[in-house]
C-alpha cells in the first residue's frame, strides 16, 4: 500500500519542520470555529495533526489509485467529441475520489464548505497529486480560481460559486490567454460589454485554456472600449459548459489527461469580479503567486516520481554482472537528482510559507480595518512579505521547473534505451515535465520577474545574519563557500550596474538570479543540516556544485560572453 506522503522521508522532514504557528493562528482566529464545525481544530497542535491526516489521505489516494490509473489516463487522454470534452475514464474516477475525500476546496473557509487549510498544505497536496499524475493536478489545481472569487468577489458571488467547488461539483478554468495574448496579457482582446440593465456579456476567443470545459470560468476581458493596455482589462466569472463553446482541444506532447481548450464566448452572461480595470494589474497578478507555486509543486512531484523510477530501475537492472546502481557514474547521477529534489523541496516550502503568511496578513489587515483597529505593524510586515513573495515565487517556479526537466531527462538516461519506450513510466514523466517551465509564465519571464529583487539585494540583511551565525558540525565549513558565492554575486552586480547596458542586463539577468538562488537555497539546506545531521550530505553537494556554477555564472557575466548580442542579426543570418 504505497502512500506518497508517508513514504517520502524528505517531505515528512519538511512537514515536521514547517513553521505554521502564525499562519494557523490567523487562519483559525482564536480557534472559535470548533463550536460551529466539528472538524475545526482546538489548538495549533490539533491543526497540525489535521494537516498530517489530510496529507495522509491524499498520499493514500495518489499512491494507491491515481498512480495506478496514470498510464491509462495518458494513453486515453481527454477527448473532444461533438462539441463536448470528455475526460479519460481514470480522470473521472480520480476526481470522484478527491471529491469524496473533501479535497476539492482545500483552502476555502469552512463557512463555504472548505477545509480552511493553509496554502502550504495545499501546495503539498499538489506535489503528491503531480507525482501520481501530473495531468490531474491541472484540474485539481484549478480549484484555486475560487480563491480570486473569495478574495475579490462580493459575498453573493462567494455564496454562489465557492460551495460548489468545495463539494467537488465544480471544476474551474482560468481563461486568460488568447491567440495574440500569451506572455503579453496586456494585449487581451476578448470583449466585455453591458446591456442597459447593467448585465455583463463576454464575446470573443480564448486559447490554450486548461480545463476550459470546466463549470466555472474566470475570464480576463477588455471592459473598457478603446483601450489597448492592461488598464482596460477587468476580471469576470461565468458559467462554462453550455454557455461557452469549446471549439477544439489541443493535441499535446504531455499532460494528456488535462484538456487544453479553445473557447468561444458568444455573448456569454458574466459577472464582474471586484472593480473594473483591475483585472490584470491586481487580480491576475494576485492569482499568479498561487498559480506559479502550483506549477512549481507540479514540477517537483513529477521529478520525485522520475527519481523513484530511476532508483528502482538502477537497483534492478543488471549489466556487467552487477546492478547498475553500483556503478559510480550511475550512483553519481542519482545523488545529483536526490540533492536537486531536496534543495527544490526546501525552496518550494520556504516560499509557500512566505506566500501563505503574506495572504494571511492581507486577510488580517482587512479584518483589522473593518474593526477600526490599528494595523501599522502588520502592514509593515506585509510590505516586506510582498517583496519577498514577488521575488521568491518566480525564483521557485524557475528553479523547480527547469530542474524537473533535468531530473526527468537524467531518469530516462538511467533507464537507457528502455526508458525511451512507451511501456516505461519515465517517458511520460519527461513529456509531462516539459510544459512546466513554459506555462504560467516561461522561465525567461520568471527571470524578468525575479531580477529587480536581486539587483536590490533584497536579502542582504538575512544573508549577513546567516554569515555571522555559528553553524555546528558539518554545516560549519560550508558557510565559507556561501560567503564566497555572495562575494561573486556582489562583484557581478557591480559589474552589471556599472555597465549601464539594458540589453546586456536582460541577458545577464539569468546568471545573477541563479547566483542569488544558490545563496537562498544554500542557507535553507544549512538550516536543515543543523536539525538533521544526515542532511549535511545534501547541503555539501548542493553548495559545492553551486560554487562551481557561480564561477561559471560570473565568467558569463564578466568575460564578455554576451557582447555578441548586438551582432545577433549577423550570427543568425
Amino acid at each position, binding site marked *: 500500500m504505497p502512500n506518497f506522503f508517508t513514504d517520502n522521508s524528505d517531505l515528512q522532514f519538511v512537514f515536521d519542520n514547517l513553521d505554521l504557528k502564525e499562519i494557523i493562528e490567523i487562519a483559525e482566529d482564536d480557534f472559535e470555529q470548533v463550536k460551529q464545525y*466539528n*472538524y*475545526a*481544530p482546538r489548538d495549533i497542535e490539533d491543526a497540525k*495533526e*489535521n494537516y498530517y*491526516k*489530510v496529507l495522509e*489521505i491524499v498520499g*493514500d*489516494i495518489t499512491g494507491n*489509485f491515481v498512480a495506478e490509473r496514470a498510464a491509462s489516463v495518458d494513453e486515453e487522454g481527454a477527448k473532444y467529441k461533438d462539441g463536448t470534452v470528455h475526460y479519460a475514464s481514470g480522470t473521472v474516477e480520480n476526481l470522484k*475520489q478527491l471529491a*469524496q*475525500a*473533501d*479535497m476539492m476546496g482545500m483552502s476555502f473557509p469552512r463557512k463555504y464548505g472548505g*477545509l480552511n487549510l493553509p496554502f502550504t498544505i495545499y501546495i503539498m497536496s499538489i506535489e503528491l497529486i503531480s507525482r501520481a499524475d501530473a495531468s490531474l493536478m491541472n484540474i485539481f489545481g484549478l480549484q484555486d480560481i475560487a480563491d480570486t472569487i473569495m478574495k475579490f468577489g462580493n459575498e453573493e458571488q462567494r455564496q454562489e460559486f465557492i460551495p460548489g467547488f468545495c463539494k467537488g461539483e465544480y471544476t474551474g478554468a482560468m481563461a486568460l490567454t488568447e491567440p495574440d495574448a500569451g506572455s503579453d496579457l496586456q494585449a487581451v482582446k476578448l470583449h466585455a460589454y453591458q446591456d442597459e440593465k447593467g448585465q455583463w456579456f463576454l464575446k470573443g476567443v480564448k486559447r490554450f485554456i486548461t480545463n476550459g470545459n470546466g463549470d466555472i470560468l474566470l475570464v480576463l476581458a477588455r471592459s473598457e472600449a478603446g483601450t489597448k493596455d492592461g488598464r482596460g482589462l477587468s476580471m469576470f466569472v461565468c458559467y462554462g459548459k453550455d454557455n461557452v463553446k469549446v471549439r477544439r482541444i489541443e493535441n499535446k506532447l504531455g499532460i494528456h489527461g488535462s484538456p487544453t481548450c479553445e473557447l468561444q464566448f458568444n455573448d456569454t452572461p458574466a459577472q464582474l469580479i471586484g472593480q473594473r480595470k483591475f483585472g490584470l494589474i491586481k487580480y491576475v497578478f494576485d492569482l499568479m503567486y498561487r498559480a506559479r507555486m502550483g506549477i512549481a509543486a507540479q514540477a517537483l512531484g513529477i521529478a520525485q516520481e522520475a527519481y523513484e523510477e530511476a532508483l528502482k530501475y538502477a537497483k534492478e537492472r543488471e549489466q556487467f554482472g552487477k546492478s547498475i546502481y553500483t556503478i559510480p557514474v550511475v550512483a553519481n547521477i542519482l545523488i545529483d537528482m536526490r540533492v536537486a529534489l531536496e534543495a527544490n523541496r526546501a525552496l518550494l516550502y520556504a516560499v509557500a510559507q512566505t506566500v501563505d503568511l503574506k495572504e494571511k496578513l492581507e486577510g488580517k489587515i482587512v479584518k483589522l480595518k473593518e474593526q477600526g483597529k490599528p494595523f501599522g505593524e502588520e502592514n509593515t510586515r506585509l510590505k516586506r512579505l510582498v517583496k519577498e513573495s514577488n521575488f521568491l515565487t518566480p525564483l521557485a517556479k524557475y528553479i523547480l521547473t527547469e530542474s524537473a526537466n533535468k531530473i526527468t531527462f537524467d531518469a530516462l538516461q538511467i533507464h537507457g534505451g528502455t526508458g525511451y519506450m512507451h511501456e516505461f513510466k519515465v517517458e511520460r514523466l519527461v513529456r509531462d515535465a516539459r510544459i512546466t517551465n513554459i506555462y504560467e509564465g516561461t522561465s525567461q519571464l520568471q527571470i524578468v520577474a525575479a531580477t529587480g529583487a536581486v539587483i536590490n539585494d533584497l536579502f542582504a540583511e538575512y544573508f549577513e545574519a546567516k554569515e555571522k551565525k555559528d553553524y555546528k558540525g558539518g554545516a560549519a565549513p560550508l558557510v565559507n563557500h556561501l560567503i564566497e558565492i555572495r562575494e561573486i554575486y556582489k562583484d557581478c552586480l557591480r559589474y552589471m550596474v556599472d555597465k549601464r547596458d539594458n540589453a546586456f542586463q536582460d541577458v545577464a539577468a539569468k546568471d545573477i538570479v541563479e547566483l542569488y538562488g544558490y545563496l537562498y537555497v544554500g542557507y535553507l539546506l544549512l538550516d536543515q543540516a543543523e536539525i538533521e545531521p544526515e542532511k549535511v550530505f545534501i547541503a555539501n553537494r548542493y553548495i559545492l556544485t553551486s560554487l562551481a556554477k557561480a564561477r561559471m555564472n560570473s565568467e558569463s557575466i564578466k568575460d564578455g560572453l554576451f557582447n555578441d548580442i548586438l551582432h545577433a542579426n549577423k550570427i543568425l543570418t
Partner: protein
Amino acid sequence: MYNSIVMVKQVPDTANISGKVMKDDGTVNRAKLPAIFNHEDRVALELALQIKEKYGGKVIAVTMGPPRASDILRECLYMGADEVYLISDRKFAGADTLATSYVLSEAIKKIDNYHFVFAGRQAIDGDTAQVGPQTAEKLKIPQITYTEEVIEVSDNKIRAKRKIDGGFEIVESTLPVLLTVLKDVVSPRPFSAKRVMAYKNAKSLIELEKLAENNSLLYIDKLVHEYEERGHYIKTLTMDDLQLEDSRCGIKGSPTKVYKVESVVLGGSDHVGIEPTKAGIGELIDKLMTDHIFG
C-alpha cells in the same frame, strides 16, 4: 429510508506476516501482527453507504473484537458511518464462528431497527465465510450470500445479483435481509478529510477507561459524558450489557478446536529437472502419485 448494520472485522495483515504468529493452542497471536480492516467488510460498508445515499437512512458499523478493534470503527466513521459499536469483553476471546455469530446477533437485536445487515463474504484470517450466514440464521432473517450487486430496493423488497459457479443469479428477498459481499463489487470510498478531522479523537469505553486509569483527575463517567456530547464516543457493549449466556461465548462457547497448525514453507531449494520427453513426464507422474499429490 433503509437502515443498515454492517459487521466489520479487524484482521491480521496476512500479506505481511513475520515471526511466530500462532499460539501453541492454535489460535492467532494478534498482538504479533499488524491489524487492518478486512477488505471485504470495507466493501460491505461502501455498499451500505451507497444505499444510504440512494434511499436515505443510516449506517451503523459493528465489530466484535479486542479493544484495539476501535481503530477500524474510527475508519468506518471516516468513511461515513453514522454510528459505530465496539462489542468487546475478555470473555469473548477465542470465539469460533458459532460463538461470534451468537454475540453479534444478540448485539444486532439490541442495536436498532434495521433493514439490512451487511458483511464481507469472509475475513482473511479465518477464511470460513460462516459468520454472516450463521448470524442471519440466529436473527431468523433471509440471507443473500456472495452478493455482486444490489439492483433495487423497493416496497420492503430487495433484488440482488449473486455469484454462483460459472455465472450469476438474480434473487429477491423480503427485508430485513443479511447480505455477504464479494471483494470487487464496489471500490470503497476514501476517508473524508472532514470526517477524519471530526472523529480522529473518537474513543471507546475501554480507551477512555485507560485514559482515566492514567490520570487521577479524570473520572470515567464524566469522560464518557463529555465524549458523548462531542459525538466522539464509540459505543461499547460488553457481555453484561448484552446479557449473554456465559457458556455460549468465547472459547467456552466454541466447539471448533484447532488440532494443529503447521507453517508450510514452499522452498525453492528442491527443484527437480524433468526432461521434456515422454519418459521424463512419465517419471514425474509416478513421483506425484507416490507423494499422493495425484490419485
